[in-house]
């Protein structure tokens, strides 16, 4: 249990274990093996950042490279899911959703409802999101609010290696379409991960830290940022309850509301741009359902309403950091009517 591996390794291990358990699990995406048709090594890449490395040799015929045709191969994963496979397809960067969104939101997400409850579409779409690698405006977006908006999709944001493995196992076993959002700047983050397979249920928040003064809800890579802020604040006697919902859809509204009912204060930390995002979603939930407990305005810490800038000088200002969380918490704790 005290074994430490990286977020990347945790994901890889989940894939390996589920592929071993269930022969209907297949993996597909651009260079998920790498080297198709080329003279050198096959499995030369294992995905652009190495998450699927080693699967190709281990599971012959079950790791498929694809042409750069996201609509076709994401659609193929969806079609295959309706006929008994459990595909894990990779949309390399979440930013590429624009060339294949139809298959995801009009097809996979709606089959079950449109067809009167008769479709089963257990597809997982793994995708890489987030800023922090200077990958600029078209390779750094968060975008998970767009998927969260769509009924019929489940949306997962693992915030640590432990969550990455357990949520991936659940995603593969889940019978609904799942958008699995991996933060590109977290692959090398290391943490304790049990060796045996385990599934983290969707819709159950993790209380990263307990505290009575302020509820801080954070998503994905913002969870460690929020935790860092909480550590800092604890020094000055402010105790934050840091909640990681782990999935944005379904959302563990009960945990959030209960926490706010006891703290009376809410800060939401969301790496996405500010309009119609998770920060507004959670803030609105609380303003509607826990208003009676709220003792201060809600605060939202998000990226600005801009594309992601390239220059590291700007990108570091763009990404919400723990100082901003500290400031937000101070604002809500010092607020007076």
């Amino acid at each position, binding site marked *: 249990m005290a074994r430490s591996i990286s977020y990347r390794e945790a994901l890889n291990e989940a894939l390996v274990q589920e592929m071993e358990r269930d022969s209907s699990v297949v993996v597909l995406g651009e260079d998920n093996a790498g080297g198709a048709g080329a003279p050198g090594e096959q499995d030369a890449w294992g995905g652009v950042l190495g998450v699927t490395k080693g699967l190709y040799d281990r599971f012959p015929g079950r790791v498929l490279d*694809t042409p750069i045709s996201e*609509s076709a191969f994401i659609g193929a994963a969806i079609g*295959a899911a*309706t006929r008994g496979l459990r595909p894990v397809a990779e949309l390399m960067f979440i930013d590429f959703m624009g060339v294949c969104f139809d298959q995801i939101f009009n097809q996979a997400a709606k*089959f079950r409802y449109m067809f009167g*409850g008769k*479709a089963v579409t257990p597809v997982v779409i793994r995708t890489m999101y987030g800023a922090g690698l200077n990958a600029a405006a078209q390779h750094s977006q968060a975008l998970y609010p767009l998927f969260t908006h769509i009924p019929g999709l489940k949306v997962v944001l693992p915030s640590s290696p432990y969550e990455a493995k357990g949520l991936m196992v659940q995603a593969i076993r889940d019978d*609904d379409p799942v958008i699995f959002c991996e933060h590109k700047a977290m692959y090398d983050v290391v943490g304790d991960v049990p060796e045996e397979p385990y599934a983290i249920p969707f819709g159950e928040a993790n209380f990263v830290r307990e505290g009575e003064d302020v509820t801080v809800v954070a998503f994905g890579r913002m969870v460690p940022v929020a935790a860092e802020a909480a550590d800092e604040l604890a020094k000055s006697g402010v105790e934050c309850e840091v909640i990681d919902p782990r999935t944005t859809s379904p959302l563990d509204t009960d945990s959030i509301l209960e926490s706010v009912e006891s703290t009376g204060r809410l800060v939401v930390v969301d790496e996405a741009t500010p309009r119609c995002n998770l920060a507004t979603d959670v803030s609105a939930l609380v303003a509607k359902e826990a208003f009676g407990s709220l003792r201060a305005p809600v605060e939202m810490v998000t990226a600005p309403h801009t594309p992601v800038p390239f220059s590291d000088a700007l990108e570091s200002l763009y990404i919400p950091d723990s100082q901003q969380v500290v400031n937000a918490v101070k604002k809500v704790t010092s607020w007076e009517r």
Partner: protein
Amino acid sequence: MTETVSAKPAGELDEAGLLAAYRTMRTIRAFEDRVHQEFAKGDIPGFVHLYAGEEASATGVCQHLDDRDSIASTHRGHGHCIAKGVDVREMMAEIYGRRTGSCHGKGGSMHIADLSKGMLGANGIVGGGPPLICGTALAAKQQGTGGVGVAFFGDGASNQGTTLEALNLASVWNLPAIFVAENNGYAEATSATWSVAADNIADRAAGFGMPGVIVDGFDFFAVHEVAGEAIERARNGGGPTLIEVKFTRYYGHFEGDQQAYRGDEVARAQEQQDCLKAFRNRVTTSGALAGEQLDEIDRDVAALIEESVEAALAAPKPTREDLETDVYISY
């Protein structure tokens, strides 16, 4: 690689096969003609696109298929559904938005599906089906069932990127997939001669590494033969085929379309190019079937359609309890 195929003798089809084919085509025609009438009365809600005139395509292809095989359809999906064995009564109820419908009234004309029959749904998105069919074909291949996937799509859809990507992917993965381009001359009000920048849709096959075949869509036997070859090849690991079926849409793009953009081609087609008339003519002339056998089917079908409409009208609509169910399997 494009070749045009004209009709050959009915060959492999025995009497039962011929009767089944005729029954399917007649059922589609009668279904569509009736929906056309009922729509005009104002009883049918939503957007409805009719397949009348195109029966030989769905029928000629699907007659080769069984439950291992999947098809994906289009907004003009009734014919594909019937040919793949979806229950006609449930279809009619669905079109009327009833709880007894194929999709419990939640889908409607553009989303009729029956996964248990491998019918992956009509589809409101032009070009929505071909990617999905790459997937069902992949599943069949991985599972070794010998199954194939068939994507039906229109001339308009042949210009949608999703369709073109699927052609390439099917070849790259060497999938047991058949792409049936139903060229009925129009995408809404736009002529295929204008929107498809090639002489034939089938001409695109070469650029995606597969054979392209053109077939007369008013001739059931021609479609049946061409489809049979392609499906056989696919089942045996020979990869995908693009089949272009050429014919004419009998009704407007959707019910309500005034069709000012068309000439007199429809009336001419209905008179001279009708897959049902051609079929009857051919099988009765050759003596393969007797006219009475076909008449009997016509009567059966008429009764079925009548019954379907009556049942649909009498059926209950879904209620508030149905509104939020079936979004997820588990939540």
